[in-house]
């Protein structure tokens, strides 16, 4: 097994200085979030106060009240959930099946298929917005969940991630089931899939967050205010002429919160998924 190697009990001086810098930067990195949260509890006049209140003196909740009464925030959040969940479930179905085939089955053209997967892995979808938008209009999916979900299902990331997990499943598992006469789909669904559950978990979380945080495509598809996702809706507040930053920061807090909570609960899956699904040794 790989073992963590520690040089000495006590770190050397340059290393200690480096770590102090790292910690300092990490704290500095937190500051914008601190500022976003405290500012969201200020009045529109309080925002302009200079020198600013470094620590909150009063908690003014009106910005949040205004947001929830003036904007369809709940609807936006529901839209985000529908789009992120819908996309992710379809991605999981398609990519586990495809990855299973590439990893565990033998068929002609397999090498080419995997080559295409790898190749398109890093090509950004954003550069296809013109033809993709044309497709969406042809199918009349504009301002519609289908338009937000379906084009995003065509991702090869999931195939690549899951292939890594299927590769570590022992061949004997499939052989035994095959000898028992189980059919191909039963083998996949009943026997192999349970083994790669951690992979599915990682894919679920990574894909969910990615779709949730997607901006450009959802913005193009959502025509009406009611169809916006949370990110798009909150960003639209930012582009308002309204100079009340306290109100806008309240929006930013609401946009940041769901994924933050998710990250806190599923941290392990994040780091695991990101590292497994990205680079080879």
């Amino acid at each position, binding site marked *: 097994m790989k073992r963590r190697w520690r040089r000495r009990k006590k770190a050397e001086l340059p290393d200690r200085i480096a770590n102090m810098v790292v910690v300092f930067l990490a704290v500095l990195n937190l500051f*914008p979030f601190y*500022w976003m949260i405290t500012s969201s509890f200020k009045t529109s006049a309080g925002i302009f106060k200079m020198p600013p209140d470094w620590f909150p003196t009063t908690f003014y909740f009106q910005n949040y009240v205004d947001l929830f009464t003036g904007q369809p925030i709940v609807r936006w959040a529901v839209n985000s959930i529908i789009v992120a969940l819908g996309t992710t479930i379809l991605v999981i179905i398609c990519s586990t099946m495809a990855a299973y085939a590439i990893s565990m089955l033998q*068929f002609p053209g397999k090498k080419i298929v995997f080559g295409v997967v790898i190749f*398109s892995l890093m090509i*950004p979808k954003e550069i296809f917005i*013109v033809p993709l938008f044309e*497709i969406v209009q042809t199918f009349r999916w504009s301002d519609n969940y289908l338009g937000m979900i379906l084009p995003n299902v065509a991702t090869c990331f999931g195939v690549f991630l899951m292939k890594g997990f299927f590769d570590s499943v022992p061949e004997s598992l499939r052989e035994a089931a095959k000898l028992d006469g189980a059919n191909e789909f039963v083998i996949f669904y009943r026997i192999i899939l349970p083994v790669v559950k951690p992979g599915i978990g990682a894919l679920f979380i990574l894909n969910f967050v990615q779709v949730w945080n997607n901006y450009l495509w959802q913005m193009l598809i959502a025509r009406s205010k009611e169809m916006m996702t949370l990110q798009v809706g909150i*960003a639209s507040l930012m582009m308002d002429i309204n100079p009340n930053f306290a109100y806008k920061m309240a929006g930013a807090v609401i946009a940041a919160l769901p994924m933050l909570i998710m990250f806190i609960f599923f941290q392990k899956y994040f780091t695991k998924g990101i590292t497994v699904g990205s680079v080879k*040794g």
Partner: protein
Amino acid sequence: MRRKRSRKKHYYASKPLTGWMFLMPQLLFFAVFTIYPVFEGLRISLFHTTYTSEIFVGFQNYVELFQDSLFITAVKNTLFLTVVVVPATLLLGLFISIAVFDKSHKYISTIRSLYYLPVIVSNTVMAMVWNFLLNPASGLINYLIGSAGGQTVNLLGSRKYVLWIIAFVTIIASVGQNIIMYVAAMIGIPGDLFDAAKVDGASKRSWSFHIVIPLVKPTTLYLAVINTISILKLFVIIQLLTDGGPNNASVTMMYYLYQNAFVYDKTNIAAAIGVLMLSLSIFLVLPQFKALSNPED
């Protein structure tokens, strides 16, 4: 890091059709939403479309683009951001990862999470917060510059600084990803590789340069590519911070593509930019493609 096992598989009697059957759903989506758009994009870029007609114009749109000074600016801006952001995020990620990777698990995971926070809350939120911090009327940055005795400027409204600001926010928003990858790669280095250095009593700086950095080179190459690609597709940070301004000083290729398609109503030009960006991405991804296809290099 994982090493691909080079074992011989038996592929216990699966019919060729079975494999393709399992591929079908993925293939269907891929064909409609990736393969078709590539060719359709190429086709659109060779036409001139009006409300009533569609005329084949050959490479006219491309010629027009290269004569368009705004497009040249967009290319330059994209290049500038790549040249500034990619090395900066790599070096910063490398520095932070080397500093922390040989410490306790708890420390590593705390540091990693703190730097990953901006990635998690999304570029949209990051852009909003930094827009607030940088705005000339109530922004904290200007207050700090002012109270330090400096000349207050509207950083987002200055042609001189705007790209640097975008680069800065992008670096903060993306370094977390690099740290996760680097730390994982470094933890995966077998301990006995350090033993010689240990015996020699070499300093951490010395073995970092001689052992760690060379060994994480595949990670560095991979990150260089994905960071470049994410600069290429950078959108929301620009839209919410500057909207391409002031005076188009922060328009990138992606932003110009978007503007042509959805603001100026020049779909054909936008498609041509898309084709150019696709060629650029293929060019960037090609070396990585080779590395990923032969894991035993």
